[in-house]
Structures are given as C-alpha cells and as structure tokens.
C-alpha cells in the first residue's frame, strides 16, 4: 500500500517468493551452462559465447512462459493466487536474463567488425522480403524493448501515476512480447536445429500459455451482464454469506462487489485501486474488504482504505426487492459513504425438515 514510496516493500512472503524464483532460474542456468557441455559429445565444443547466449535466451523464454501461465491459472484456480502476488519481481528478473542474452549476441555476432555493433545489428541482414532468412533479430529487439518497458514501470508509483487502466494497457505489451519471442525463436534457432527436443519444448510452452489464456478468457465471458440502465440484479438474499461478496456485472462492463458484513449489505467497485484486482473475490478481514491479489484493504461502506492509507474505490447504492438484492449501475465518487442495507431474513420457502430425517 502507499503512504511514502520506497524502492521495494519487502515482507517474508516476498523473500520466499524471490528465493524460490532465483533458485529455479539458477537451476536452469547452472544445468545449461555447466552440466550440458559435459554431456554433449561434440568433436569441437560450441563457442562459450554462443552456449551462454543460448542458455540465457532459453531461460528468458521459460521464465516468460511461467509468468504468462500464472495469471490465467490464478483466474481458473484461486490456489494459484499467491504466485501472482510478487510476479513483478519475476518479470524484472526475466528482463535482466533477456538483456544478458542480447549482450552475448551483440558482443559476439555483431562485434569485431568495423561498424558499430548496434548499427550492424540493424543493418547486416536486410532480407525483409523472405521468411527463411528473415532478420529475426528484429523480433528479439522488439520483445526486449517491451520487457524493459514493463520492468521499468513495475514500481507502484507507475500504477498510481498512469492510473491502473493505462498501466494495464501498457502491460498488455507482454502479449505482444511473447508473440515476438515466438517469432524470434521460430525464424531463428528453429530454422537450423536438427535435434527437435528444443522445438518440442518450445511448442509445449507456447501451447500451455495459449490454452490457459483462452480458457481464462472463456470463463470470464461466461458471466452474464445486467440489462442497461435499470437496477442490476446481484443475487438472492439467501445466497449471501457473512464476510463474502457476490459480484454483479453491469451493462457498462464494470463489476460491482456486494459484501455482507455484520448482516448488512454494502457495494463497492470490484476493481481494486491498486492493480484493479477483483475485490469481490476477496473477503472481509478485521472489518475490511481485503483484495485477493496484493492484500489492499477497504472499508466496505465508504470504499476508503484505513488511515494512514489513502486509496479509495467508488461505492454503489444497494436495495433489496423481495428476494433479490439489486445494485444501482451509477457509481458514487470514490470514497463516498453509503449507509449499509440490512439483509432481510431469507424467506423460509424451502422447509428445512425435508432435509433432516
């Protein structure tokens, strides 16, 4: 949460997260760099610079694949949410690995010539009119620039400064970057490689990313939206559980989280002020709605974070019509207090005695 900015807000979970991530990256690089040369029975070894470049390039691809799988996996199965928690550190690390890859490439293939290596990189191969032999380095450069933008704008300051929607749109560049990496690999190393193990692993990784994302998107689409203008139906009175929310999708596409706290209903925007995390999928802890993504908290009646924090989300009006809880589609300005509506006792239409005996 905010108050004064500091470089990184550490906590034990983040330490643990980073240790596991670094251990995984170190395992990949160590095995690739130091174990596999012993296994390869080549008459003459691959140049160390090329071997290193490949190790870091392959590592960046694997990391990017894991990162891209976390998001949809968490959307499909909430148990993956903790992996989402500190994903930005994973992303920044990936960028450094990718930069190392590009460094080895630049300082080997594009070095030792009379022209500047950056000019050489852009100039040496100009066969843009063909697929085989296309200067696939261009795709790598684009992906690297995307990753650098994402890493450089990962601090919470950028979220607040750019606003979550613009920040999120900017960070959609990850999808363009992943496509670009796929193109870089397909028109690069895949053209020459005679051993197809890498090809198969590359395709499996890309397929996992595609399948998970499409599945998450389909699950998202399956939610029905309310009709335009009128009060939107949220759920039946009997469906509410103390401390949890029901989510309504408005005609505008916005989502509202209607929480039951101490027997009363309150509605706030489903989008957390931090990263637009789904507040309605969180729960009430110590009288405060807690976002499932990064634990930002809000008073459900006013949409305000408890002091000294300053985050605010819009609130909505709620009413109960018969057995149905409804929400008004017009949002109140963030932080507007709305008097909670008592939840009536559910009508005993389903006699309990049928269930017992």
């Amino acid at each position: 949460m905010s108050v004064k900015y500091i470089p990184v807000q550490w906590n034990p979970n983040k330490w643990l997260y980073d240790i596991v991530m670094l251990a995984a990256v170190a395992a990949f690089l160590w095995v690739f760099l130091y174990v596999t040369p012993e296994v390869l029975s080549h008459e003459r070894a691959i140049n160390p610079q090329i071997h290193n470049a490949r190790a870091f390039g392959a590592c960046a691809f694997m990391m990017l694949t894991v990162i891209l799988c976390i998001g949809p996996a968490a959307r499909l199965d909430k148990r993956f949410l903790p992996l989402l928690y500190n994903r930005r550190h994973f992303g920044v690390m990936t960028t450094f690995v990718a930069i190392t890859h590009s460094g080895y490439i630049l300082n080997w293939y594009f070095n030792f010539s009379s022209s500047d290596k950056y000019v050489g990189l852009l100039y040496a191969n100009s066969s843009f009119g063909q697929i085989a032999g296309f200067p696939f380095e261009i795709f790598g450069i684009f992906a690297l620039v995307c990753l650098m933008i994402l890493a450089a704008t990962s601090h919470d300051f950028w979220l607040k400064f750019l606003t979550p929607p613009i920040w999120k749109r900017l960070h959609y560049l990850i999808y363009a970057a992943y496509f670009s990496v796929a193109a870089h690999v397909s028109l690069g190393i895949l053209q020459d490689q005679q051993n197809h193990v890498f090809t198969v692993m590359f395709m499996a990784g890309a397929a996992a990313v595609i399948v998970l994302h499409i599945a998450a998107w389909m699950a998202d689409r399956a939610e029905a939206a309310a009709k335009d203008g009128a009060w939107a139906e949220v759920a039946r009175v009997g469906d509410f559980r103390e401390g949890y929310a029901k989510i309504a999708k408005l005609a505008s596409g916005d989502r509202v989280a209607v929480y039951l706290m101490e027997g009363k209903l309150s509605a706030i925007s489903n989008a957390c002020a931090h990263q637009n995390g789904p507040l309605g999928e969180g729960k009430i802890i110590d009288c405060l709605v807690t976002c499932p993504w990064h634990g930002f908290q809000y008073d459900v009646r006013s949409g305000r974070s408890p002091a000294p924090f300053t985050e605010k989300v819009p609130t909505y009006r709620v009413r109960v019509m018969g057995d149905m809880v409804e929400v008004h589609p017009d949002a109140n300005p963030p932080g507007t207090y709305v008097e909670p509506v008592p939840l009536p006792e559910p009508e005993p239409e389903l006699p309990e005695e049928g269930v017992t005996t």
Partner: protein
Amino acid sequence: MDVAQALVMAMQTWGMIGAVVALVFLVIGIDRIDEDARGAYIFRPLLIPGVLLIWPLVLWRWWQIETERAAWAARYRPVRASYGLAVVLMSVGIVVIVITGLSVRQTWPADIAPVQLTEGAGQ
C-alpha cells in the same frame, strides 16, 4: 546502412530527451503531482529507466494531472474487455508464426549432384 544509422541515432536522441524529462520530472514534477512521493527520494532513481523509455507518456500524464483533465471514473474502469482481443491476437499470431517457421525449414539437398554444363577451355 543509412537507415540503421538513423535508427540508432533516433534511439540515442530518444534517450537524451528522456534523460532531460527524467531530471525535470523527478526533481520538480513528481512532488507536484503525487503526495506520496513528497519526502521520498530513495525510490526515485528506480523510476529513471521508465522515464527514459516512455517519456512522452510521462509528459502527457503530468500535464493531465496538473490540469485535472482526467475523469475520476476512468481510473476505476478495468480493461478486461481488451483482454480477450489481446489473448486471441497473441494466440493466433503464435500459431501462425510457428507453423510458418516450421514450414520453411530447409533440408540439406544432399542428393543433388553438381552438373557440368560446359567444358573448360583447358579440358
């Protein structure tokens, strides 16, 4: 060569303008537009790479906040709608590029022998 040199020069120019923007923004601008940044200095160098890369966006947002042009509601509108588009474009793109890449793979034509078309003068 000229195009490549021009591109590299353009990149350098972009970075230099970015450096100026970063200096002005991190010394003056950030205190004006974000109360959480007041008195917080250690995190500022972390923002330099970001400003270098996307300085036009920084200038635009700075101007927007200074002139209070952005509607408050815009901040709370999640962009889930474009998620589907992004995912579909990425997925289709990857499938197409991988298939295209694999389909143009070359096989060493070891069975094609050299053919002598004319005799040499000395033969």
